[in-house]
C-alpha cells in the first residue's frame, strides 16, 4: 500500500516534469530559432537543419554598414525616445496616481471614472486628430512629438500604481505630517522609496511601450533618418520579408535582447508590481 502510493507519486512527478519540459521548449523555441537564424549564412527563411553548418556575424555587420537600413541611427533614435518617455511618463503617472490615491478632494471620483473610461478608447481612433494637432504645432516628423504623446497618454494606464498606493498604510504619512513634513516631503522622502517596485514596473513598461510602438511612430515619423527601430523593422518585413530573412532576424535579436534582459533581471519587481496592482483589481 505504502509502496503503491510512492510509485504513483513518482509517476505524477515524472509527468509533471515532462509537461514542464514540453512547455519550456514551446516557450523558448521561437527565441532560439531567431537567434540561430540570425547567425546563419545566406538570406533565406528556409533551412534544411535547425543548426547551420557554420555561424556568421555578417548579418549583424550588414545592419550597421548597409546604407539602405540606417539601423544604427534608428537605434539611437529609439533609445532617446524611449528613455525620455520613460522619464516623463513615470513622473506624470506617479504624481497623478499618488494624489488620486492619497487625497480626498472634490472631483476625485469623477476624475477616476473619466480616466478609466478614456483609457478604453481604441488608441488610434484619435490618431488622425493627434496628427492634425501635431501638424498645427509644427511637430510632425520630430521625436519631441512622440515623446509628448507617449507621456501625455501614459497617465491613463496608471491604475495599477493607484492600486499600489492604496495598499500603503495611511498612518505612515499622517505621522510624518504631524512631525511637520510638507506634502512634497512626505511624497519624496517616504512614498518614493517605498514605491521602488512600482516605479520599476512603470518605468519598464513605459520604456518598452515606446521602444516597440510602431503604429503611431509610423504615422508621425516621415523621413527615414528619423525612424525608430519598430518602424524600420516593420518596413524591412514588408519590403523584403522573404528575400532577406536572416537580416530581419539579426535586427530582431538586437531589439529584443536589451528589453528581454531588463525584464529578466527586474523580474522580482515586475512580479511584485503586477500582483500589487492585481490583487486590488
Amino acid at each position, binding site marked *: 500500500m505504502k509502496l503503491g502510493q510512492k510509485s504513483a507519486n513518482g509517476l505524477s512527478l515524472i509527468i509533471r516534469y515532462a*509537461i514542464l519540459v514540453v512547455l*519550456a521548449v514551446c*516557450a*523558448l523555441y*521561437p527565441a532560439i*530559432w*531567431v537567434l540561430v537564424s540570425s547567425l546563419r549564412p545566406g538570406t533565406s527563411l*528556409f533551412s534544411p537543419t*535547425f543548426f547551420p553548418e557554420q555561424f556568421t556575424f555578417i548579418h549583424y555587420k550588414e545592419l550597421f554598414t548597409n546604407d539602405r537600413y540606417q539601423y544604427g541611427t534608428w537605434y539611437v533614435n529609439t533609445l532617446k525616445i524611449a528613455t525620455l518617455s520613460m522619464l516623463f511618463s513615470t513622473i506624470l503617472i506617479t*504624481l*497623478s496616481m499618488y*494624489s*488620486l490615491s*492619497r*487625497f480626498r478632494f472634490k472631483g*476625485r471620483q469623477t476624475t477616476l*471614472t473619466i480616466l478609466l*473610461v*478614456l483609457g*478604453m*478608447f*481604441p488608441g*488610434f*481612433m*484619435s*490618431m*488622425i*486628430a493627434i496628427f492634425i*494637432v501635431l501638424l*498645427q504645432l509644427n511637430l510632425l516628423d520630430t521625436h519631441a512629438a512622440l515623446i509628448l504623446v507617449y507621456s*501625455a*497618454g501614459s*497617465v*491613463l494606464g496608471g491604475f495599477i500604481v*493607484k492600486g499600489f498606493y*492604496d495598499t500603503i498604510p*495611511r498612518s505612515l504619512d499622517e505621522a510624518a505630517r504631524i512631525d511637520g513634513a*510638507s*506634502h*512634497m516631503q512626505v511624497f519624496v522622502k517616504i512614498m518614493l522609496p517605498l514605491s521602488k517596485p512600482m516605479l520599476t514596473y512603470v518605468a519598464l513598461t513605459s520604456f518598452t511601450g515606446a521602444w*516597440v510602438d510602431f*503604429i503611431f511612430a509610423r504615422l508621425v515619423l516621415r523621413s527615414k533618418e528619423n525612424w525608430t527601430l519598430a518602424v524600420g*523593422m*516593420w518596413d524591412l518585413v514588408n519590403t523584403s*520579408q*522573404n528575400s532577406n530573412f536572416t537580416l*530581419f*532576424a539579426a535586427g530582431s535579436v538586437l*531589439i*529584443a535582447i536589451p*528589453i*528581454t534582459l*531588463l525584464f*529578466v533581471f527586474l*523580474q522580482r519587481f515586475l512580479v511584485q508590481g*503586477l*500582483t500589487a496592482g*492585481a*490583487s486590488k*483589481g
Partner: protein
Amino acid sequence: MNRHRGIAAILSVLVMGLGQLYNRQIVKGLLYMAVYAAAWIYLIPQLGTAIWGVVTLGEKTQGFQKVGKVMVRVEGDHSIYLLISGLITLFVFAVFLILYILNIRDAYWTGKRRDQGEQPAGFKQSWAHLTDKKFPYLMLSLPAVGVLFFTIMPIIFMIMLAFTNYASPNHIPPKSLVDWVGFETFTNLLTLKTWSGTFFGVLTWTVIWAIIATVTTYFGGMLVALLVESKSIRFKKMWRTIFILPYAIPQLISLLVMRNLFNGQFGPINQYLSYFGLGKLPWLTDPLWAKVTVILVNMWVGIPVSMVLIMGILTAIPKDLYEAADVDGASGLQKFRIITLPFVLFSTAPILIMQFAGNINNFNVIFLLTNGDPVNGNYQYAGSTDLLVTWLYKLTLNNSQFNMSAAIGIIIFIIIATLSIWSYRRSKSYKEEDMIQ
C-alpha cells in the same frame, strides 16, 4: 463694512486680476493679468472663425476663378482643419473660462475676508496654501493638461467625425467639403447590406476571439503556475524565468517572428510536419486555420501574464487551509477544487473581465500576425481574422472611410466601457477603498 468683496468681484469680472490688485495681492493680480492678456491676444482673432468653422465645416469649395484672362486656382475651406483648429480654440477658451471663474471667486473670497477685518494673504501665504490644502490639484494639473489636449480633444474630434460624411471618394478635403449628416453613418453601418454584413461578421468573430483568447490564456496560465509551484518540483526559479520569457520579448518582434515561423511554404513548423510525413498546413492562408493560429500564438504571448498573476495569488492563500484539508484526508484534486480554484477565481474576477475587454481591442496579435488576412470576398475592406479594431485601422489608414471608422470606434467603446465600468464598480479597490489603514 462689506464693500470690499463686491468691488473686488466686480473689478475681477471686468478685468482678470484687477480684483486681486484691489485686494493688494500684487503678484497674484499681475499673474492673472498676464494670463488675461495672453488669452485675449490668442482668442480675439480666432474665436469667431472657430465657431463658424465648427458649425459650417467650411462653405467654399476649392475651384477655379477667372482673374482677368487666366484661370486661377482658389483655395477652398478645408473642413477638417477648420473642425480641429476650431476645437482647439474652443478648448483653450474653456480653460480660460475656468480660470476666469476661479479669479472672480478668489477676488470675492479675499474681499470677504478683508470685510471681516483680516489681512489679505501675501503671495508667500497663497503659495503655501496651494501646496498644502490644494496639493492634489497642483499635482494633477500637468497630467490634466496633457490628457485634455492629447486624449480628450482627439476623442471628441473622432466622435464628431462619426456624424459627418468625411469619407473617400466624394468628401475628402481640400478637394471637397465635409458636411454634418447626423446619424446617417450609423444607419448605413447597421442597415446597408455591404456594411452590415461585414460589421456583424467581424463583430461575431471579435466576441468569439475574445472569449477563447481570455479563457485559454487564463487557464493555461493557471496550469503552468500550479505546475511550477507544486510541491516536489525543483528549480522553481529557473522554470519561472523560462516561462516569463515570452512576455519579456517585445510583442512586435515575437509576432513578426511567429509570422515567419508559421509561413506555409518555408516556415519551420510546416517543415517539421512534412518531416514526420504529415501534410503542410495552411496556417495563415486558410480562414479557419488562420483563426486557430492567431489563438495559439496569443496563448504563447498571454499565458506568461496570467501565470505571473496567479503565482502571486497562490502565495497569498493561507497555508493552514491546506493543512486542515490534509488532516481531513483530502486528495490533491479536492484541495484544488475546494481551496485553490475558488480563491484564485475570486481574486482575479475583475482582472478576467479587463483581460476580456483587452482582447476585444487586441490590435497587435492580429495586425502583426495576419494583418487581418486571409481576404474575405464578402467583406467590405476586412479579412477573415480582422477584429473590429483592426478593421477600424484599415478603414482609416488604407481606405479613408473616416466617418465609418469613427462610428465603429464608438461602438467598440460602448461595449468595452460597459464591461469595464461594471467590473470596476464591483472590484474591491472601488468598494473598499477607504478601508485600508
